[in-house]
Structures are given as structure tokens and as C-alpha cells.
């Protein structure tokens, strides 16, 4: 289990990185490498050149504004996990990164890298979707912003092709009177989730549920966001029927079965996780709404 030969470049500017990528169709960007390195060692991937962007300055920032959190390409999961500033604007970031593998992986793996890897069982792909986020991509033609719906086109596949470096991911902040929750069920703690759910519940001025949305891990080919408001909208937090929302979610998803979970079992978990996370998120929303008044 040793990587096949490749060339290595560690440019110090984005432009240089793009030049190397443009010169070699088989080149691939290396950031945290926590998903890429096992693929190289198993020779399931054999890029001709690895373009290590770790020495490019300016890509390691967490930029927090009232609008949201911009996470640079070299920000490790562990940093985002411990960023109280980021959590204040978008609590899902810390809650989701806490579920990424184990600490040693989080110390090295990058949030943007995991989004670019586009694994439907990845935490941060789902959070990008749930928060209606986007990424900034540098190409030889310039920089563009790609929304999550356009970004994820299939399992381990994004719409970013050709020479390109994903510079950052932008996660919009949590709306007012909202709460979030994130939960996973994994076979072993730290494993890829058999099923996971991140939710946002928003209340209206009367502290009734105005919207409930959920994104799931490991249930589809790409991250999916489902609006479950129909089941609970207009209900006070205390009497909303979260189980009905779970039931609704179960009908909306179409998971596959694999070694660790049948499709039916995943659907069961979608219901359970939806019900539990929505209740938690709603309670948080109520408490925030209360604090805000």
C-alpha cells in the first residue's frame, strides 16, 4: 500500500498553483490529504502531479461577519470546531465538525477539502447545503462563486473541472429566532455516519415554527436539503409534532443500502434523527428568541 509515482509541486501563490494544474491534466490539489492519501496508498487514485497548496499564504483564515462565516481552504476541521466566533454566527459549523472522524484526522483535514471531495457522507457537504452556502473557486479565467446546488453533481463529484482551486467556503449565518442541531449514527464513534442529520428551525415573532429544514448524510448521492415545514409550521415549539416531521422526512428520502445499513434502516434513522434534532433545534430557537426579546 504505497502511492504510485507522482510529481510534487508546492506553489506559494494561487496563480502558480493554477499554472501547474493547467499544465497537467492529471494534476490534483492536495490540502489536508486525509481522504486523498488513503486513495493514493491503495492506488485507487494516481494523479500525475500533486499540487500542495499548504504553502499558499492567505488561505487559512476564518472570516466571520454578521452575514456568515468564510472558511479558507487551509482551515483544519479542528480550528473550525474550536472557533467560538464562527459558532456564534453559525453554530452548525462546530456541531458538525465535532462529528468528523477522530481528533488526529481533524487536526489535518480541511473543511474546504472535504467539501471539494463531495462525499455524501461528509459532514461539511451537508452543512454547506443546509446553510445554503457556496464556494469560491479560482480558475485561470478568474474567480467565481458556486452555490452548493450547482457544486455537488454526484458522489465524490463536483462541477469544478479543469484547473481550479477551491479557495474558500461560505456558510451564511443563522437567521434570527433560529436554532440548529446536528446528530449522527455511526457504527463506531468517529466512523462515517450510517445516517446523519443537520437541522435548522426558525420561529416567527410569536414563537411559532415558521420553518424547519434538514440535510442528511449518507442517504443520497449528493447532499439533500428537505423542507419539513409543512409538518410543523404554525405550531408553538412545545406542541409541534416532531414525529410527524420525521415521518414526512422518511417519505422524502430515497437512501441506498450498503454493508452497514439497509435502505429501510436508513429511512428509519432519518425519521428518528429528524424528530430528535428538530426538537433540540426548536428548543434552542425558542431560547434564542427569548434572549433576543
Amino acid at each position: 500500500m504505497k502511492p504510485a509515482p507522482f510529481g510534487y509541486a508546492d506553489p506559494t501563490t494561487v496563480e502558480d498553483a493554477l499554472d501547474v494544474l493547467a499544465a497537467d491534466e492529471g494534476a490534483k490539489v492536495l490540502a489536508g490529504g486525509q481522504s486523498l492519501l488513503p486513495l493514493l496508498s491503495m492506488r485507487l487514485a494516481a494523479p500525475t502531479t500533486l499540487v500542495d497548496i499548504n504553502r499558499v499564504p492567505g488561505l487559512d483564515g476564518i472570516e466571520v461577519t454578521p452575514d456568515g462565516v468564510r472558511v479558507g481552504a487551509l482551515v483544519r476541521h479542528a480550528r473550525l470546531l474550536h472557533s467560538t466566533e464562527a459558532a456564534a454566527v453559525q453554530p452548525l459549523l462546530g456541531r458538525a465538525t465535532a462529528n468528523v472522524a477522530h481528533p488526529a484526522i481533524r487536526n489535518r483535514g480541511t473543511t474546504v477539502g472535504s467539501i471539494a471531495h463531495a462525499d455524501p457522507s461528509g459532514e461539511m457537504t451537508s452543512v454547506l447545503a443546509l446553510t445554503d452556502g457556496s464556494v469560491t473557486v479560482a480558475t485561470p479565467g478568474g474567480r467565481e462563486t458556486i452555490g452548493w446546488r450547482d457544486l455537488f453533481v454526484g458522489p465524490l463529484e463536483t462541477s469544478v473541472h479543469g484547473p481550479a482551486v477551491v479557495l474558500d467556503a461560505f456558510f451564511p449565518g443563522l437567521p434570527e429566532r433560529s436554532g440548529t442541531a446536528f446528530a449522527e449514527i455511526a457504527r463506531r464513534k468517529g466512523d462515517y455516519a450510517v445516517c446523519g442529520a443537520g437541522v435548522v428551525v426558525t420561529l416567527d415573532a410569536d414563537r411559532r415554527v415558521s420553518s424547519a429544514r434538514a440535510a442528511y448524510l449518507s442517504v443520497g448521492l449528493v447532499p439533500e436539503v428537505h423542507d419539513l415545514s409543512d409538518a410543523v409550521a404554525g405550531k408553538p415549539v412545545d406542541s409541534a409534532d416532531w414525529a410527524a416531521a420525521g415521518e414526512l422526512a422518511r417519505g422524502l428520502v430515497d437512501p441506498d443500502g450498503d454493508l452497514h445499513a439497509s435502505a429501510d434502516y436508513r429511512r428509519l434513522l432519518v425519521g428518528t434523527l429528524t424528530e430528535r434534532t428538530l426538537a433540540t433545534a426548536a428548543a434552542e430557537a425558542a431560547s434564542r428568541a427569548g434572549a433576543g426579546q
Partner: protein
Amino acid sequence: MTTKLFGEPVRRREDARLITGQGRYLDDIGSSAYAAAFLRSPYAHARIVDIDVTPAVDVEGLLAVYTYEDLVGPMAEPLPVLIPHPQLTSPRTGFPLAKNVVNHVGEAVVMVVATDRYVAEDALDKIVVTYEELPVVVGVDAAREAVHAVHDDVPDNVAARHHQETGDVEPALAASPHTLSFTQYFERSAAMPMEGKGVHARWDDADSSLRVYTSTQASTSVRAAIAAKLQLSLEKVEVIAPDVGGGFGVKIVHPWPEELLVPMAARLLGHEVKWSEDRREHFTSSAHERQQRQEVTVGYDDDGRITALDVHIWHDNGAYTPYGIIVPIVTATQLVGPYVIPVYRVRVESVFTNTVIVTPYRGAGRPQGCFAMERAMDRIAQERGLDRAEVRMRNLIQADQFPYDHHLTFQDGRPVVYDSGDYVGLMDKLKALVRWDSFEERRAEARARGRHLGIGMAMYVEGTGPGPYEGGHVQVLGSGKVLVSTGLTSQGQGHETVFAQLVASELGVPMEDVEVTTGDTRRFGYAVGTFASRAAVMSGNAVALAARGVKEKALRIAADVLEVDPGDLEIDEGLVQVKGTPGASIPLRTVAVLSNPLRYAFDEAAKQATQFAGPGDDSKPPVAVGDAPGLEHTDYYSPVRSTFASGAHAAVVEIDPATWEIDVVDYAVVHDCGNVVNPMIVEGQVHGGVAQGVGGALYERMAYDRDGQLQNASFMDFLMPYASEVPDVVIDHQETPSPLNPLGLKGAGEAGVIPGSAAIASAIEDAVGRRIAAMPISPTELYDLVRSDADQVSNTKTGVLA
């Protein structure tokens, strides 16, 4: 008085090097060695049409390529059938490199040697092997149906039919007041030590000799195999097991193809060659264990006492049978556990499949046997409306029935006669430890929280310390240092510590003076190996006997010097002294010097033994007839039969009915391995065994698809437990010494793993009220089980995933 050592939790002497990164594992040896790597079959069953190595020849750094065509003499013959048995009527083994046909994914086809492992793998990528695929047999059921055959000349796929009976079972069943029958499955797992296998070989051209380091559990036998296969005289081959990163059975199999091919290449190339197995190779080319289909019929009376037991097992032995039918025999004979079974018949069909070979993994057939017996106990309890503990109690062999003869023949060819035990004591302790009788309160409390709580138990008897023998050598040097060696190997059991405790204790020397070597054929050439919970029993007794021999000689020599009767002498803290007479003494190190009459003084101490040093008896030769120079002794321990350890486990599981996650919240162990040399080490063995038991019950399964591809050949998908999945374990001990050996020991290595699946299955059934027909069980399978209408559901389609 010398500090008491036997029975004390002495800290391990191995640890000083292992906690500082100074251990010496296989891959740490030979930094300039060439690297070997293997091209392995991607197909489960195929004919090799052509091997084209020419595209690899251009790879810079490639040094050699070997295929079957390059093997000569005994190397071109099949690998040995290590343990022949009359009932193993169709034994089959592979070749070091595949000849014509491959029978499982991962079978070695080509070996390359290159400057390093990266380059070696580059070369492998370029070699083109053309295969013609053949029909694949996966799982015991497919093997049983025999639509296709793994080996052309074994059309029914049956390698062996093992059969034992203690009476006429059919009439006994017919006469039983009640009978019940069930069929169940036990799935594949694997030993999966953290260090894979590995071999390093160095050929000494000047001496025409070979030194081989291998991560093995049986260095003396690897040595014999290499000598035979490479046509070398035994004294020209040295085999050493360095620090070994876990074994759990998989490293007892030998010679692995690599253990022959790497030395062959080292000799041909005149250069050190090393192969370090990577994890992917370990999954598909080492060994697995445990898959069986079990058909059980049990007869019992109104009180739940068993009257007869008939078991028919289909055992998946994988593609080949290098380790004979040891696992099936162990299942067949250990199945009866601590119970009186008036009439017992067991038939095992050991069948070929196109999968990795099946050889012992910690427990070695016992977890399956325990699963059959204990599930039967639970069903009898259910049918009779009795408490599960009570049914077991009624069937236990009683303390006054020892030695208890089951009239079966064990894996060592010897009778299954339980030497000692107190099974009622085990059960009493277990019930107290797990608060069995007050469980309903806990269940109600959990129900109020919306959780299903269940409790289960299982008991076992484990034949440990089988022969034929082990030996020990103890030598006292003039420096006072005591060298101890034994031939069997160590994989983390703390032998350096335990054997030092025993020798220091027997000899009366400080433990710091004792140095222990294991698994090095340069130091001890006769040994069997480390398996079947036998090291403490076998080598423990052997080194103790050797130490007693040294002590006897030391006292004799000292008695001459001190002019007293040897019977009046004792050794304490390395000083030979007259009991109760302070002052009259001689250091043991001086006795060692005097034991070897010298002509030449090589150091100050040696002067005492030279020919002009002092008055001697001119009428006698310096070395008496029948005596030998030196203060050393070699002795062997060879038991008449195995000694039988025992134990009882209980598990409490909590199940969330919204996710069907299974949480083992309590795990209790009562354990009896006779006298305990080092309780800290024994508890460590139990902890580790339980973790493997829990893994085997809830997480670990080798998942083959219908094409014989292993679907989860990585640590990502083969779910060995992390700390988060292993419950806290509470342990209570019972010590029933073995009357068979001088130290009263029984083995402890495997015990922890044996009842795991049985106890946890019992607890899950108790929690959800449905019958489990296969282990392991995962949440998704449990969800299927509870939703099913059937009384009994096979929760997994054994061996084959859709």
C-alpha cells in the same frame, strides 16, 4: 526473605523498551534489506492462463521476479498439511506461488523483489496475469449444496467428516420427555493483530547459513519447514521471533508462503530480503475464522435437565486445510461446556469455499461451540418457563465429579477429562456480580426511559495447555545473571515477566537478575509454539522445573563448599545459606563459577575455579561421572493431557427502539484459570478477550460477496472496536488449581473471547423478545429481526451479501 513473586502483579519488564519506541518488531529489522511484494489473485476462483512479467522489467530498482515456474524441488510441492488427521480425507494446501489455479482472492501468484516497497509495487502494477474465471463457492450453504466445487477432485466440497459420540443419541432423543431443534449461524471474523505478518531473511554465503526473523507464533517449526523446503541442514537455519505485534492465532499457521519465499530470494540474491505484510494483504491472504452452520437437537426433561444432545455442524474451512481440522475438533469437543450431557453426538462437515483459509483465531472454535450449547440452554429455559441461570445450574457438573470424563477426544488426541473446577461457584459469583436476581428492577427503570434492557449469560470450559511439550533452560552465570530461555514465542502476553517471576521465585534470586528469551531457535531448539492458552502452563512449568534442577545442583555444590548437608541449605536473594545459621553462606554466582572447573582464568571471579585455586579431592575427576560443567539445567514439561479452565460471563444490553443501536452497558466475568502467576497480566488477557468477544458479537464480520470478493478489507469497514465500543468489564476470580502440573496452572489467553457472542445474543433476545439465529448482529439486522413476522429469523444471509 526473597520478595514473594508468584501471584503478584509484578510490572512488566517488556514495557521499558516498548513505551520508548525501542521495541524491535519485524519491520524494524534490516534497514538495508530489499523489499519483497506479492501480486495476488483478484479472483476467488480462476485458472491462470498466462503470466507476462516483461512489462515490469523496465522498472528501475526491480531486482527479481518469481513465479511458480521458478520454484524447484520441495518448493514446487504443495505446502504441508501441518496437522494430519484420519478424518481429514481430502486435505488440500496451496503452493508457495499459485500453480495453474487460484482458489481465493489474495492468493499469491508472483513475488517481486526491489530496492524498496514503493518500487516493488510499481513492478506489480505492470505484471499482466491472464485468468480464466471459474465458478465460485462462497459460504457454508453454497459449499454444502455443492453445485460447484472448489477443488475439482473434491466434488462435494467436504474436506473432512469429523464424528464423535458418547452413546446412541437417536434412541436417547426419542426417549426424552422434550426435544427442541434449531439451526443457527456464526460468521467470519479474524484475529487481526495490529502488526501484520512479516519475514526478514539473511543468507550468509561464507557459512552457507540462513537467519530468518519472522513474526510468528512457532519459530522452531518455521525453522524445520524452511530447512525442509530449501533443502538445508537444520543447523544451518536460525529462526527468531522478534517483538511480535499481536498474534491471536493467525501467526501459528506456518510456513506461510512468504516464510519460504523470502528466505529463498535472500539466498538466490545474496542479500537481505524483507517482506512486511500490509493491511490489505492481511485481510485477503492471512487467515479468518469462525463461520459455521449449526443444527442442534437437544432432549431434556421437565426440570430442564439435558438428556441427549445431537449437533450437526457445517464448518467453512476456506480454500485449503493447512491447519487440519483443529478448529472443528475444538468446536465439537468444547461445545459441551461445564454441563453433564448424558448422550452426545457431534458431526462436523468441514467444507471448502473460495475464501481465505480458516485457522485458529483466539478461542479457536470454542466461541462457536459455546454459542450452540448456551443458546440451547436459553431455549430450554424458555420452553420450560425457567430462569436461564437455574437451567444451567441444574445441568452443571458438580464439584465432586472431578476428574470428569466426557468420553470425547480432544484436539491433542487425548481424552477430554476435566481435571478440576467449581462451576457452581462460578455461577454463584456471576449472579452476584451482575445482580442477576434483581434485574427486573433495572429493566423496568429502562422501560420508563423508553429503552429495552436485556441480560444474558454464558458459561464455558476451555481446554488449555495441550502438549506435546515445552522446554526450559536456566543457566546461572558467574556474574550472578540468570539466563532463561524457552522455545515458544511471545506476542504481548508478558512472558519475559511471568517466566522471570517463576524462575526468580523457584531459584531464590532477585527478579532483576533474571533475563528471559523466547522464540529464538539459537537459544532453544525444541518447542511447539504459542497457541491454545498454553504458554504459562507449558513453558511456565518447564522453566520452573529447569530452575528446580539448577537449584538442586547449586545446593549440592554449595553443600560441598560449606561442608553441610544440601538439605540444610536454602537460596535467598541470590545467596546460598544454611537455614537458620547466619553467616554460613556462599553467593549463587560463586557457586556458578565453581560449577565449571577451569584451567584458564578469564576474569577475577574465574580464578576461584582454576586448578591451583584451592584444595580439591585428587581421587575424583574435576567433573564427576554423570555430571556436567556449568550451573544450568534443561527440563521439559509434557502433560498427560490438557488442563481445563472455565468461566462465566454476563452481559447487559440496552437497546434504543428508535435506532436499534445496541449498547453493552455491563459486562461481568468470572474466571478460573487455576493458580495465577501474575493477576495483572491475567486481567489484561481477560479485558482483551472480552473486547474481541464484543467485536465478534456486534461489529466484526468478513463480508464476502457472491463472487468471493471481500467487501470490507479495510479498517474503515471491518469494524474492530475502538475504546468507545468496548464496555467496562467487572471481573471476579476463582482459583481451582490444576492437579496435572507442578504449578497448578491453567491457561488464560483465550478465555475472555469465548462466551461473548453467546452472552450478548442471549441479552439481546431477552431485551427484544425475538430469537437470534446468527451472530454477529448489527443494528440494521436487529431492525430487520424485530420487524419480521417469523418466530425465528436468520438475520444474516450467511457468508453472502446480496
